[in-house]
């Protein structure tokens, strides 16, 4: 008997013995099963700035896990060795939710990140771990492309504190040709996350010739401002040639600076540049009085002047989770 997976907008109808597009949700005798539950293929303690999250507990370590699989197939994927891997060919460690929470607490991490591949495809594992982590006083972070149906998304967000959502482009054509997906469900997921009260930061990977034209960047920025608000942190990330896009050059620093200037000129308050050495576009400034609030070098917080989440000079409240 066929089964239909209704987790993501692909709504795969899966034949017996086959998997969905994500490779990790399979039909076993008419029952939908997840093969990666409790088995992490990557497990690290990273700085939270690496996610990137710049407005969430700055300077803290975050226990980060992933499984193999992804429901998107981005031709530029930076983590394709795990996101596009078959579980049969991969190596994993047994990590039931209780163990992850225990290890995160032992390592003095304040939060757990479900990241690297995409937590959407290891949904049940993420959900159960996040629920348990919340009970034990830990925070939960998703780093995701947010290609997910509204109902499971809303359910999961109840246990989530912050998300960094990859808005890969602003045209449906880009999503279809580069990612094997569509734009609208991602935009819906972003709006739902924001409305649910979760801290939302957005990342856009700027790929030469594909989504780096000023008008495309401006359209993306305008959408973010109109639908998520001017206080939503936006990270422009540098592309490196990977996977099926090795023919393109890395994004030039100049293009990233242009993207940042466009976003600032359109009225976004917190715009950053990532995946690149140097200090420019790394710091957080008060949108009101322009005081330097958080100084960063790479993933290191050099100084944090925020007082109770507010600017020490003008008292303006800064969007974020600060303690």
């Amino acid at each position, binding site marked *: 008997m066929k089964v239909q*997976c*209704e*987790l993501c907008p692909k709504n795969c109808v899966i034949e017996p013995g086959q998997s969905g597009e994500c490779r990790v*949700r*399979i039909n*076993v005798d008419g*029952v*939908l*099963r*997840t*093969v*990666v*539950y*409790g*088995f*992490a*293929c*990557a*497990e*690290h*303690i*990273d*700085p939270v700035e*690496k*996610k990137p999250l710049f407005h969430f507990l700055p300077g803290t370590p975050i*226990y*980060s896990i*992933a499984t*193999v699989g992804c429901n998107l197939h981005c031709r530029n994927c*930076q*983590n394709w060795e*795990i996101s596009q891997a*078959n*579980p*049969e*060919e*991969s*190596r*994993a*460690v*047994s990590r039931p939710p209780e163990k992850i929470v225990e*290890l995160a607490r032992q*390592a003095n991490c304040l939060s757990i*990140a479900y*990241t*690297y591949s995409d937590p959407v495809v290891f*949904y*049940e*594992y993420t*959900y159960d771990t996040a629920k348990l982590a919340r009970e034990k006083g830990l925070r939960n972070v998703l*780093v995701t492309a947010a290609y997910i*149906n509204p*109902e*499971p998304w809303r*359910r999961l967000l109840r246990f989530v504190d912050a998300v*960094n959502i990859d808005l890969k482009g602003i045209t449906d054509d880009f999503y279809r040709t580069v990612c094997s997906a569509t734009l609208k469900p991602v935009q819906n997921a972003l709006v739902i996350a924001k409305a649910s009260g979760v801290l939302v930061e957005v990342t856009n990977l700027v790929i030469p010739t594909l989504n780096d034209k000023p008008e495309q960047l401006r359209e993306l920025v305008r959408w973010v401002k109109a639908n998520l608000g001017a206080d939503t942190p936006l990270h422009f990330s540098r592309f490196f040639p990977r996977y099926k896009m090795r023919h393109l050059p890395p994004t030039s620093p100049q293009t990233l600076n242009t993207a940042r200037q466009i976003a600032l000129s359109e009225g976004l308050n917190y715009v950053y540049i990532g*995946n690149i050495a140097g200090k420019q576009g790394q710091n957080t400034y008060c949108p009101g009085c322009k005081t330097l609030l958080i100084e960063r070098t790479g993933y290191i917080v050099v100084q944090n002047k925020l007082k109770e989440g507010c600017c020490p000079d003008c008292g303006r409240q800064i969007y974020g989770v600060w303690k």
Partner: protein
Amino acid sequence: MRQANLWGLEMKRREFIHKSIKAGMALVAGTCWLAKKAVPRKFVRAVPLRKYPGSVGSLPDVLEQSRWSG
């Protein structure tokens, strides 16, 4: 005297009742189908598979900063 059924429009009472029941049933079935389509289907969790299909072993040191993006 009974008039001839020139146009094939006349039917016996029994036929009329049968046709009415059939039409009613089709209407009910159609409404149910539409209602089912209109209501969003409830998401059902996938059940964990106990055995991992790949190899299970140790991973690099957790304190090593990941080489993965994100």
